[in-house]
């Protein structure tokens, strides 16, 4: 029996997978829409902060309960690609909400979660910072979406073509 991810790891993975994919779609729908903009922004902000909390929990969990090793037979090039893409995903999962939070801070906007609940700014109200962070948020989101597509393609290839237990390790 091949080792699998601990239950908490699997739970965090699948919860965040659904939320991040929803977040990416909400994000691109929001910035291109006049009618739905405000409704979607009201979802996007608190969901982003929730994802920041979840990824922090997930990183701690990963350090405490490391993932099972990849199959020994897997070519080293594939292993390097797997590890690199996982750390890229972690980096983006932290970067996107932090850049979003920072960008609203630099715009001088309140960071409203729900009702009167809001977060303090993490950067000064600064035109030049906003001008960098706002486009960076979009570019990083596209990069996260592309990395997600690669991750999904790789996961399905493990499940359907390699059949090497890697996909199973995240399912049960």
């Amino acid at each position: 029996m091949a080792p699998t991810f601990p239950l908490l790891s699997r739970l965090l993975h699948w919860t965040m997978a659904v939320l991040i994919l929803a977040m990416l779609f909400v994000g691109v729908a929001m910035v291109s829409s006049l009618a739905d903009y405000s409704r979607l922004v009201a979802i996007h902000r608190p969901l982003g902060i929730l994802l920041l909390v979840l990824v922090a929990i997930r990183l701690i969990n990963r350090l405490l309960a490391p993932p099972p090793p990849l199959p020994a037979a897997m070519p080293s090039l594939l292993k390097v690609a797997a590890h690199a893409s996982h750390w890229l995903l972690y980096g983006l999962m932290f970067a996107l909400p932090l850049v979003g939070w920072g960008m609203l801070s630099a715009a001088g906007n309140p960071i409203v979660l729900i009702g009167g609940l809001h977060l303090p700014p993490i950067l000064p109200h600064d035109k030049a910072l906003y001008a960098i962070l706002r486009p960076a948020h979009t570019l990083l989101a596209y990069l996260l979406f592309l990395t997600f597509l690669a991750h999904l393609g790789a996961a399905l290839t493990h499940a359907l073509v390699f059949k090497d237990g890697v996909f199973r390790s995240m399912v049960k």
Partner: protein
Amino acid sequence: MPDRNPYSLAHLTKPASLARLGGIGVVVLAIAAAFAGTAGWLSPDRLGPDAMIDRFEEVNGKHPGFRRNHAKGVCLTGSFESNGNAARLSTAPVFAAGRTPVIGRFALAGGMPMMADGPAAVRSLALEFQLADGQQWRTGMNDIPVFPLKDPQAFYEQLAAGKPDPKTGKPDPAALQAFLSSHPETAKALDLIKAQPFSSGFANATYNALNAFLLVDASGAKHPARWSMVAVDAFAPEPAEMPNGKNYLFDALAARVKQAPVQWHLILTLGQPGDPTGDSTLPWPADREKVDAGLLTVMALQGEDVGACRDVNFDPLILPSGIVGSDDPLLSARSAAYSESFTRREGEAKPPSAVQPATGG
């Protein structure tokens, strides 16, 4: 089971493997296509914030660093003294009795920062109330009684219809007429706007937040409301003869502020069931209850190069708890388009202020 290496080229090029890899490719591409569709990349004709702001730039020309609308303006600083009267209607901390610091901006509607002041320009007052707990309330108000356009599509079409002809410097009357024929609500709203005389300046004008909002009280009940800043300075009509000076309105405001602080009453007009909240072209009956929530005092003006208002997006949906947007489609559209305008100008070099208050406050 034959011993096999699942990572080998031989395994991957088997017909069964190729079929599965193809299927995976289809799944990945389908998700990418759904993403592109959601982003609007497959429907370039859809009216989004970028197209709206592009149209402002087409009509007014590009003026880097300036707001795409209400481009000509000055910053203000002051405060709002709440009398507590509105606290029964809304839990917003700004309505509890007490003082809230305010920054803001006086401006002329239109996308040309160097336009001359004149009687035809709509004047605006935008405010940011800085609540003690870190919340903010931003609002942009105009000195007209109703808004002439009921939704973003009408706004977009009207911008093109009102574009000055390069030869005559005036909009094509036929295009304007065609727009009004297809938008009777605009024609009616313009009649109401023309029927109300403009004041002689910024300081004695009354500014109306033309969209409706909902005030939420402590029990959670929602009260439809439209708010206005009603001038304390006595109304005087526009002079028959236009004063001299390209910035005569701003110069008069600066002189007035230098003399003494200028004040406005924040008046909340409460809607009754059936009053339209989703259409800014429609007035509410004149007999609706009005609540005087307190007094706005403008203490000083600053040019946009040094004032705090320049890098503020007066997004009408930046609201404290206790105030929420109504079903007016212009609110979300303004929020989206202002954000696009803000992002463009923040990425551009900071220009000198279009007007300098001679006094500096």
